[in-house]
């Protein structure tokens, strides 16, 4: 009787003590096989860690048992693992880009449950050593295309230098530059030149600066006033040098006014306010917009239109082209802006570069036609070989899958 009483007291106590203690979270099961391989096409500073999902990591479970994966690493010669990153559930890979070239590493992956529960660690079978690749083979096709286009440009420049005549189509927007400066001279009003709002490291700005060289040469020749507000300090410096060289080239160094090229502000709409205010006060007869433009393109062009200026614009920003086309007299569309310096200089070796571009256009056109034909054939025939060719074209030739 006494034994039985003690038994029940003990059992009751155990039940109570279990009930009072915190409920331990259930640990998820560990991920499957963990693999670590050298990350391809890099300088030997990264390792790609991949693992099979934990059986408890289901795509749409009623209750999520795995919330993340913790990735741990140690050097092969080291002693303890340290956490290097975490990936969310349903993730199967992690890029460890903090490796040292030549060092060997071991990895572990732990599945994390809610409330901090951790699975046993799954580990790589052996160490992995990141190795440097000397060439990024994922960019091989890009390199080949660049070589063909670049080689053609250089080839045609050399051909033009050897004295061969090259025919280039007429670009109305560039022909209009002379007319615009002449008109401003006749009216006794200034020419306004806006070289875009990006810095000198942007190709559009550089292209704009080369056109400025021609415009400044004309204003020097015609004795017209030139006004160049810039939105970047480096662009101001480059434009000053260019305008000065153009005045010198035209034999009018005395007419060069250093203050004609000036800095306003880096701020987009502050710059627009400054330029449009100047336009309304001084009413330039010719406005040139050559470079990179954003939302300010239409504000500038419409203000120029309102003051009755002849306007020539050129930009490689496709979204701004319709605004310039609508509001300006002439617009250089995309590549025409880059062709401007060669076209305006009239130097045969510069014109050669335009011929080189044509080879690129033929190549681009051929790829477009082949791509269209393949896509159509795949839809019509569903042939596996054609599908493979199309995939190769899009993923390898035009993508970054390499050879």
């Amino acid at each position, binding site marked *: 009787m006494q034994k039985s009483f003690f038994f029940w007291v003990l059992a009751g106590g155990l039940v109570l003590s279990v009930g009072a203690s915190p409920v331990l979270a259930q640990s998820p099961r560990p991920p499957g096989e963990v693999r670590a391989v050298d990350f391809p096409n890099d300088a030997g500073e990264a390792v790609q860690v991949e693992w099979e999902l934990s059986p408890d990591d289901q795509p749409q479970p009623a209750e999520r048992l795995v919330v993340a994966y913790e990735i741990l690493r140690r050097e092969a010669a080291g002693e303890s693992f340290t956490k290097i990153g975490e990936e969310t559930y349903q993730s199967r890979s992690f890029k460890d880009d903090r490796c040292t070239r030549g060092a060997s590493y071991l990895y572990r992956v732990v599945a994390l449950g809610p409330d901090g529960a951790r699975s046993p660690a799954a580990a790589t079978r052996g160490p992995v050593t990141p190795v440097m690749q000397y060439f990024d083979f994922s*960019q091989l096709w890009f390199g080949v295309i660049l070589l063909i286009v670049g080689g053609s440009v250089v080839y045609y420049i050399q051909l033009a230098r050897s004295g061969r005549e090259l025919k280039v189509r007429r670009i109305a927007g560039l022909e209009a530059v002379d007319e615009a400066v002449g008109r401003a001279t006749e009216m006794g009003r200034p020419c306004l030149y806006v070289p875009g709002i990006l810095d000198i490291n942007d190709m559009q700005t550089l292209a704009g600066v080369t056109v400025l060289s021609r415009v400044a040469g004309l204003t020097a020749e015609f004795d017209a006033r030139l006004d160049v507000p810039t939105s970047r300090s480096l662009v101001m410096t480059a434009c000053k040098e*260019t305008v000065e060289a153009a005045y010198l080239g035209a034999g009018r160094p005395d007419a060069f006014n250093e203050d004609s090229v*000036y800095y306003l502000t880096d701020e987009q709409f502050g710059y627009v306010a400054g330029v449009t*205010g100047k336009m309304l006060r001084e009413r330039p007869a010719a406005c040139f917009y050559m470079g990179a433009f954003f939302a300010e393109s239409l504000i500038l062009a419409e203000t120029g239109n309102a003051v009755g200026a002849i306007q020539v614009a050129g930009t490689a920003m496709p979204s701004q082209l319709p605004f310039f086309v*609508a509001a300006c007299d002439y617009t250089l569309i995309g590549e025409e802006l*880059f062709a401007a310096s060669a076209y305006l200089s009239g130097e045969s*070796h510069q014109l050669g570069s335009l011929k080189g*571009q044509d080879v690129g256009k033929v190549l681009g056109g051929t790829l477009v036609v082949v791509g269209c034909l393949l896509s159509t054939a795949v839809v019509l025939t569903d042939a596996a070989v054609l599908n493979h060719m199309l995939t190769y074209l899009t993923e390898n030739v035009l993508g970054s899958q390499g050879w």
Partner: protein
Amino acid sequence: MKRTLPLLIAAVTGFVLIGAHFVPYTQSWGEEAMIWFDILAAIAFILGGANLVKLNLQKVSDRRAGWGYAAVTVIAFFLTLVVGMAKMGVHPSPQFAQFAWSGDYVQEGSSFWFIYQYAFYPLGATMFALLACFIASAAFRAFRAKNTEAIILLSTAFIVLVGRTYAGTALTGWLPEALQFDNLTGTIMNVFNLAGNRAITIGIGLGVVSLSLKILLGVDRSYLGTEE
């Protein structure tokens, strides 16, 4: 020398940046080159500020047309500079409470923040808002049905404008599916417009390659100024 050295720097940096795209080991060189550009741009910023102040002070001093605007520019420039550099109204950061200037200069409630929030930001928004009026005036001119091309442009613009609104769906819901304005808008934007855009983009890409090579090889030196 004045043209040769910059040309050399441009050529070396340019070819390094091209190489960095293909040779993994040189990737960090490309990043270094861009850091150097940032340093140059930061130094040039002083030149720009000095130029702004000089020209505007000259204008005020000579009482040239619009000198009042120049005065406002100079006052605003120095006011913002002093307020920002002196960190007026900035509370010390909790981490370094013993240092009065340890707070961030754009800290909420500071004088610089006040200028940005209540002067600069609304003024910028006002300029941006002007765009709505300019779009209307430009569209009015561009969409005049003067010839066949203009009529096509006008019709296309009408379909896209209406097709982007609920009215387009409501008004043309009774038409066959392919002719409903919302579907027509999709076709115009995803087929005709996209094809044209891609053609322009390919041309731009080729133009960039060509101009870059001309600059790197020293064929085009017009941006370098004069030797003298």
